[in-house]
C-alpha cells in the first residue's frame, strides 16, 4: 500500500476541535458483511469518532481525533482488511454535480407540492363552470393559486431559465427556450387575468408542466451520475507510486508525478513499471499486454527499453528513467485518444436536433396566431395575445421533454441490470445506428489467458512433473500449466531455479529436469514443424525424449455465437490485432471473420477506424488494452470489458461486466429499441400537437383542455418508454 501513503495527506480535511476527516473510495464493498468489517474495525481503533460506509457510492468517510491517529494508518487498516482504499477529494470529484442534482430534486419536490395544490383548486374551478360557482369564489381560488404558483415558478423554473439564457447568449435555441417562455408567459398572463377577475388562468398548466419536466430531468441526471461515479472510481484508482534508488543506495517512495528523468527506479517482481526507461540491471519477463495487447510476456535484459504501464513478472529490475509523466508512451497514447475524441464532441443528439426545428416553429406559430387574430378579428390586442400564449402553452414540449429522458432512464436501468454500464449521455443513441463492429483480439475476443492445447497427448506423469516445476514460477505459461493440473498432487522435485527468459530447472531423483524454451531444453528445432500456437515450451527430463507443450489463447465461450448474432443482424464484423499475421488469420478463420488486420499499432488502429468512418460506416469499436484506447475514442461508439485497462474503460462509452460477449449484441438491440421508442415518442408528441395547436390557434383551448392534454400526453410517452422493460434481454431477436 505504498501507493497511497505518500499522497494521503492532501486529502485530509480539518474540522474544528482537532477532528480530521478523510474520504475514501472502497470499490470492493458490496454487502452488509463488508460494512460491518470496515466500520467495526475502525470504531475499535483509538481516536476514530465516526466511520460510515456508503454502499450506493462505495465510499467511506472517517472522522478521527487528530492527536490519536493518522490518515496513513487508517488507510492501511482498511486496506489490510482486504478493501483497497483510495483517498479522494469530494469537492473535486462530484461536489458540483451532487449540488446540482440535489437542487433539481428540491425543485421537483416544490413543483410537485404546488402542482397538487393548484390542481386541487383548478378542479374546483372547472367543476364550477357549469355548477354555478360565484365570481368571488373563483376569484379567491385564482388568487390562492397565484400565490402558490408564482414563487414556485420562480424557484422551480430556475434550471430551465438558466439553461435557456445560456442558449440564447450563444445565439442558439434549445428545448428550454420555449419551455421558459411558455412558463413565464403563462404565469404572467394568468396573473393579469386574475387581477382582471377573468374566467381562465393557466397556473395549473405552468406548474404541472414544470413538475413533469423536472421529473424527466432528474431521472435522466440520476441515471447518468450513477454511471459517472463508477467511471470516476476507475480514474482515481490509477494513482501509483515509484520506488527511487538514491545515489547512496537508500530507497524512497515518491508519487509518480514527482519522479524525474535520470532517476533510478526499482521495480519489484509483480509491480507495474511506473515510467518509461532503460533497464540498468536485472533480467526479467515483462507483460506488456496493456501496451501491445499481447498476452505473452517479453524477455528483458539490461539496455532494453520498457514502458510505463507494463507489468514486471519474475525478477526485480532497476531502471533509469528516460521519460515520465507527459513524456511516456502511455501519455502519447492518451494524446492520440484525446485527439480522436474531438470528433465525437461534434455529435448532435436527437433531442437537440428536434429542438432546433421545434423551437422556432413554436415561436412562429405563436406569433402567427397573434398577427392573425389582430388582422382578421376585432378581438383587440389582449385577446389576441391570450390566444398566442395559449398556443405556446399547448405546444410546450411536455411530452417532448419526457420523450428522450423517459426512454433513456428505462434503457440505462436495463443495461445496468445486465452488467452494462452506460457512461456517456448519448452513447445509447450512437449505439443504435451501428453497422460495423470492430473487435480487438487479445483480451476482447479471447480472455488473454493461455491454456494448454495438447494436454491429451501428454501423460499425467509428465504433466505432473511440469506442474511441479511450474508452480514455482509466476510466468503466464507456468500458471497455465498449474491451472491445467489443478489441485492434484505433484511429484517431489528439488533445487528449483528460474532463469528469466529461458525457463525452470530442477532435480528429480538425481535427474535433471528442464521446462522452458527449446534451446533451454536442448532441443534442436530444425526439422520440427512449428505448430499453430500462441506459444510452445518444452519439458526435458534427463534420459527421455523432450516433449512439447503447446499453448493457445482462450476464446471467450460465446465469441462465435456473438459474432454470428451480430452478422445475422446485418452488421459487418472486423478483427484488428497487434498480434502476428499467422495467429490472427487462424483465429479469424475459426470465428468466420473474413475481414481482419494483423500487426496493428495503436496509431494504425485509429487510422483503420477513421477510414471506416470516412467511408460512411458507423463503427462500434470493442477493445480492452491501452493500445486500443485511441481507437475506442475514434469509434462512432465504443465498448470495453470490465477487465480492460482503466484508460480504455474511460475511453469507452459502455463497459460490460463478466466474461460474456453476449452483452454486445444485446446492448445494440436495447439501443435500437430505445431509439425506436424515442422516435415513437416524438411522433406521439407531434400528433398531440397536430390536434391541439389548431384548437389553440382558434382560441378554443381552455385551461382544462390544456391540463388534460398535457398530462395525458406525458403519461402516454412514459408508458411507451416502459415497454422497453417488456422485451427480453437476449443475444438475437
Amino acid at each position, binding site marked *: 500500500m505504498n501507493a497511497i501513503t505518500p499522497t494521503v495527506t492532501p486529502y485530509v480535511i480539518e474540522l474544528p476541535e482537532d477532528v480530521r476527516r478523510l474520504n475514501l473510495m472502497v470499490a470492493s464493498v458490496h454487502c*452488509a458483511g463488508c460494512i*460491518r468489517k470496515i466500520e467495526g474495525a475502525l470504531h475499535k481503533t483509538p481516536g476514530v469518532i465516526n466511520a460510515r460506509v*456508503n454502499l*450506493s457510492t462505495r465510499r467511506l468517510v472517517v472522522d478521527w481525533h487528530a492527536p490519536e491517529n493518522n490518515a496513513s494508518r487508517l488507510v492501511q487498516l482498511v486496506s489490510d482488511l482486504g478493501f483497497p482504499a483510495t483517498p479522494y477529494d469530494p469537492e473535486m470529484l462530484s461536489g458540483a454535480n451532487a449540488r446540482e442534482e*440535489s437542487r433539481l430534486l428540491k425543485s421537483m*419536490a416544490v413543483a410537485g*407540492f404546488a402542482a397538487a*395544490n393548484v390542481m386541487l383548486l383548478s378542479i374546483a374551478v372547472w367543476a364550477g363552470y357549469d355548477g354555478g360557482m360565484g365570481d368571488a369564489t373563483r376569484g379567491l381560488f385564482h388568487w390562492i393559486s397565484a400565490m402558490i404558483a408564482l414563487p414556485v415558478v420562480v424557484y422551480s423554473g430556475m434550471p430551465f431559465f438558466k439553461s435557456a439564457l445560456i442558449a440564447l447568449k450563444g445565439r442558439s435555441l434549445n428545448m428550454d427556450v420555449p419551455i421558459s417562455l411558455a412558463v413565464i408567459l403563462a404565469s404572467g398572463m394568468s396573473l393579469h387575468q386574475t387581477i382582471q377577475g377573468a374566467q381562465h388562468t393557466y397556473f395549473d398548466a405552468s406548474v404541472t408542466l414544470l413538475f413533469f419536466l423536472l421529473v424527466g430531468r432528474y431521472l435522466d441526471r440520476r441515471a447518468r451520475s450513477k454511471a459517472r461515479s463508477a467511471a470516476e472510481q476507475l480514474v482515481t484508482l490509477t494513482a501509483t507510486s515509484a520506488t527511487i534508488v538514491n545515489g547512496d543506495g537508500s530507497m524512497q517512495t515518491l508519487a509518480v508525478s514527482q519522479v524525474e528523468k535520470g532517476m533510478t527506479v526499482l521495480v519489484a517482481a509483480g509491480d507495474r513499471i511506473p515510467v518509461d526507461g532503460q533497464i540498468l540491471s536485472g533480467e526479467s519477463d515483462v507483460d506488456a499486454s496493456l501496451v501491445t495487447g499481447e498476452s505473452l510476456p517479453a524477455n528483458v535484459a539490461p539496455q532494453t527499453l520498457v514502458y510505463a504501464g507494463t507489468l514486471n513478472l519474475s525478477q526485480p529490475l532497476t531502471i533509469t528513467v528516460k521519460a515520465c509523466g507527459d513524456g511516456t508512451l502511455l501519455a502519447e497514447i492518451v494524446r492520440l485518444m484525446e485527439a480522436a475524441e474531438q470528433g465525437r464532441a461534434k455529435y448532435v443528439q436527437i433531442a437537440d436536433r428536434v429542438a432546433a426545428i421545434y423551437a422556432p416553429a413554436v415561436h412562429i406559430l405563436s406569433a402567427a396566431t397573434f398577427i392573425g387574430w389582430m388582422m382578421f378579428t376585432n378581438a383587440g390586442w389582449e385577446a389576441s395575445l391570450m390566444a398566442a400564449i395559449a398556443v405556446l402553452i399547448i405546444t410546450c414540449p411536455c411530452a417532448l421533454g419526457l420523450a428522450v429522458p423517459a426512454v433513456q432512464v428505462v434503457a440505462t436501468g436495463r443495461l445496468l441490470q445486465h452488467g452494462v454500464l452506460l457512461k456517456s449521455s448519448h452513447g445509447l443513441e450512437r449505439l443504435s445506428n451501428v453497422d460495423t463492429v470492430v473487435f480487438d483480439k487479445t483480451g476482447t475476443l479471447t480472455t488473454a489467458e493461455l491454456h494448454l492445447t495438447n494436454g491429451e497427448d501428454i501423460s499425467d506423469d509428465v504433466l505432473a512433473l511440469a506442474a511441479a516445476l511450474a508452480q514455482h514460477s509466476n510466468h503466464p505459461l507456468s500458471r497455465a500449466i498449474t491451472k491445467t493440473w489443478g489441485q492434484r498432487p505433484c511429484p517431489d522435485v528439488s533445487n528449483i531455479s528460474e532463469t528469466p527468459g529461458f525457463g525452470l530447472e530442477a532435480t528429480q531423483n538425481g535427474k535433471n529436469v528442464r521446462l522452458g524454451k527449446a534451446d533451454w531444453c536442448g532441443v534442436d528445432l530444425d526439422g520440427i514443424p512449428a505448430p499453430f500456437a500462441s506459444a510452445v515450451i518444452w519439458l526435458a527430463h534427463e534420459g527421455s525424449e523432450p516433449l512439447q507443450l503447446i499453448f493457445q489463447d482462450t476464446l471467450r465461450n460465446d465469441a462465435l455465437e456473438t459474432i454470428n448474432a451480430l452478422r445475422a443482424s446485418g452488421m459487418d464484423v472486423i478483427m484488428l490485432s497487434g498480434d502476428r499475421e499467422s495467429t490472427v488469420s487462424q483465429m479469424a478463420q475459426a470465428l468466420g471473420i473474413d475481414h481482419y488486420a494483423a500487426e496493428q499499432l495503436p496509431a494504425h488502429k485509429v487510422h483503420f477506424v477513421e477510414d471506416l468512418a470516412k467511408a460512411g460506416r458507423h463503427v462500434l469499436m470493442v477493445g480492452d488494452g491501452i493500445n486500443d484506447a485511441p481507437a475506442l475514442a475514434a469509434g462512432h461508439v465504443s465498448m470495453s470489458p470490465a477487465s480492460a485497462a482503466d484508460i480504455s474503460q474511460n475511453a469507452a462509452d459502455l463497459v460490460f461486466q463478466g466474461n460474456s460477449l453476449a452483452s454486445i449484441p444485446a446492448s445494440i438491440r436495447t439501443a435500437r429499441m430505445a431509439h425506436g421508442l424515442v422516435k415513437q415518442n416524438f411522433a406521439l408528441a407531434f400528433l398531440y400537437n397536430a390536434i391541439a395547436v389548431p384548437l389553440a390557434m382558434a382560441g378554443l383551448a381552455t385551461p382544462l383542455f390544456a391540463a388534460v392534454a398535457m398530462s395525458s400526453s406525458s403519461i402516454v410517452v412514459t408508458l411507451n418508454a416502459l415497454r422497453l422493460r417488456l422485451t427480453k434481454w437476449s443475444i438475437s431477436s
Partner: protein
Amino acid sequence: MSALSILIPAALFLGLLGLVGFFWALKNRQFDDLDGAAERILLDDD
C-alpha cells in the same frame, strides 16, 4: 363557503407538512445511501 376557510388552509398545511418532511429527509441525508440502508438491516450489533 365557510368550510373553505378551514379546508383550503388545511389542505395547504398538509401539503406543506409533506414538503417540509421531504426537505428534512433530504437534509439529513436519508436518500444518500439507499442500498446501504437495505443491507444494514441485517446487522444485529450497532
